């Protein structure tokens, strides 16, 4: 039963107030993209055992989507941040590196 802090309204929301949305920072591929690009966009998921970036919506609160950095093996949460970015913010990256020195990085 996770708790994630909504970066918009500051509520430490419990999982039942949220809706999960799987992997974050996916790049959309529309018409004109190659079959491989489109397949990767739709299906190929990092699904890591370890540090993961994912989408959550504060459904029962402010209704906003936000992103979370979380370890899928321990459920440790490194931070949450607004969804309007194309990659994780530097402070989150730094925090993960401090907690997980052998982490291979976001890319």
């Amino acid at each position: 039963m996770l708790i994630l802090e909504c970066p918009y309204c500051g509520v430490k929301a419990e999982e039942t107030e949220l809706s999960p949305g799987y992997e974050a920072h996916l790049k959309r591929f529309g018409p004109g993209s190659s079959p491989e690009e489109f397949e990767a966009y739709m299906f190929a998921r990092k699904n890591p055992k370890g540090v993961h970036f994912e989408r959550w919506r504060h459904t029962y609160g402010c209704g906003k989507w936000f992103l979370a950095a979380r370890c899928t093996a321990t459920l440790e949460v490194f931070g949450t941040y607004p969804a309007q970015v194309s990659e994780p913010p530097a402070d989150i990256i730094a925090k993960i590196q401090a907690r997980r020195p052998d982490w291979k990085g976001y890319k």
Partner: protein
Amino acid sequence: MKRYSVFAIAREAVRYHLGWERAWASPEPKASYDAIIVGAGGHGLATAYYLGKNFGITNVAVIEKGWLGGGNTGRNTTIIRSNYLQDPSAAIYEKARALYETLSQELNYNIMFSPRGLLMLAQSHHEVRGYLRTVHANALQGVQTEWISPQRVKELVPIINIDGPRYPVLGALYQARGGTARHDAVAWGYARACSGMGMHIIQNCEVKGVRSENGQVTGVETTKGFIGCKKLGIVVAGHSGQLAEMAGFRLPIEAVALQALVSEPIKPCMDVVVMANTVHGYMSQSDKGEMVIGGGTDGFNNYTQRGSFHHIEETLRALVETFPIISRLKMLRQWGGIVDMTGDRSPIISKTPLGNCFINCGWGTGGFKAIPGSGWAMAELMAKGEPGPLAAEFNMWRFKEGQFIDESVAAGVAH
């Protein structure tokens, strides 16, 4: 390998059972094998078994990180059915169900297959139409199912509340030869049979890397050193993503938690398996008397084998509403497993971008019922290098051009 029988038991009883031999050997790995299966769960062991039985390939090792049968094989709710909608699904699940019918005799190990009947309740008109579609599909697929009335549901399951104020039962999809089996016994029975053919089951041996040359697999790096192989089968369910990464490719898979629970044992009160999809819950009664209960998956990636409790609550609410008598029973134990969900919720039995490396994964929430069929199809794929008809549609490239085998359609999307 000594045969199991009532006479063997009587013979051993006289000497206080001191003469039983090991069910399977625990050898040290050889330098190389004709084939290595990673993952000694039901699917991996069944693959090895049918490699030997159907293709005479017995120079095989099954490598397991933990203890055999310790993953989802030992964590599921043991339901066996084949009332699927899409042709490829119905084919492989029915193959599995048919193999289950005689598996105890074949393995000389009682897996307690219990074709006690399984029904899926229809609790909305939309669901009625969905199941009528399945019945018609099954009729053409050679899967015996029927549509039954609410009254017949009540006869089969006296403890059900068919007149629930909220979702009255409008009928059910009934598979009389669906049922359950003893999950551990399936793994143990296959393991004993594999060992009996001279295959090596190597437990407590974790694969750390996949080695290849010129695009062809050559073996695996393990905690017990390098082990060479001509062919490699990856059959590791929730950890498929990690193994695929070692082998250099990515899968359309997400690992999520699925939970189940049992009640304390009570005297027999329910003879069939009941699934109620509108309210998200299913229940059967084990041979020990426990009510075995399952529900939906979590919605986020999770490798902890622990799910979120609110799903258990949702499932129990649904089942108390459907079976009011269970309210005063007690939950004895709850647990979770990691299931591997694909983009269309159907499995992958496929060649991979790495030569002679094959993968069997993506069974999601439905793996146990498929074990014999999955092993059968995977063995054929590994032995021949090309899929047979059972596996043909389940290739990992089907997503690219949208050739789905979508089983969620029976549940529909909107009204």
